[in-house]
């Protein structure tokens, strides 16, 4: 009985010791890209595409509005 308890405690201890090590394992991220500042290029490109698409949507919206006005639609 005593042996089982001791074994159990030993396992528990080893878990407790291992946990912080697990938590602190270095996780690879795109740190280099951030350090170089190249990430801003990616952000700028994505923003250009988005702004282009939204402008397109707005122009489409305006065209539909013009047609509605022409037909005398209230909505």
């Amino acid at each position, binding site marked *: 009985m005593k042996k089982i308890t001791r074994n159990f405690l030993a396992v528990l201890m080893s878990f407790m010791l291992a946990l912080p090590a697990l938590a602190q394992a270095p996780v690879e991220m795109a740190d280099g890209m951030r350090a170089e500042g190249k990430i801003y290029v990616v952000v700028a490109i994505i923003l250009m595409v988005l702004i282009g698409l939204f402008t397109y*949507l707005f122009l489409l919206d305006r065209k539909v509005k013009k047609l509605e006005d022409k037909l005398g639609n209230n909505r």
Partner: protein
Amino acid sequence: MRNNWWKILGIVLLLYVHIGGLLLHAPRMPILNETIRALYFHVPMWFGMTLLFTCSVVCAILYLAKPTQRMDFFTVELAKVGAALGVLGMLTGMLWANYTWGSPWHGDVKQKYSAISLLVYMAYFVLRGSLDNGEQRARLSAVYNIFAFAAMIPLIFILPRLEDSMHPGNGGNPGFNVYDLDSSMRLVFYPAVMGWILIGLWIASLRIRYRLIEEKILELEDEKNN
């Protein structure tokens, strides 16, 4: 411009999301690594789809209560934009799965069931396409729309939670909180959901207005001929 504030809000939110999503802090997680940021772009697709399908089913019920051509346009166009967002969610999910789970189609339970619910909605469009009579098409498809919605909710939100899924918050997996122990991801994720919902509604509204104009033109032509 005063009626367009929600469109501008959607645009501003999404511009913020694409800046913040790439530049703000994200937790360091093994296996996911930097791809954790895909959460900002993949999950809002499904949220957007769900909301648009919800709007669609509400319109379907309203149509059945009081049939008007206008309500039928609302129902079908909302469902179309919702389905488009769902397909984007599926494709982005497959790309993400390829690099984190090991293959694009992993047989993950949520992946399978969301594919099934998309197919259920595809059948909605097939049903509409196979009926010639406008009124009959609107009525039958409104009824089917309710069934499709009733199938989608358990398929995506309930069943995957009962089985083992690799999606966070499902099966044996811990909840969404695993991604944002310090809540930092919520700062980008919730605006992303809001933004995509607003943009989805905007696109749907354009399609609805286009259908209404088309309808009006047909009416005017009829009047001229008679």
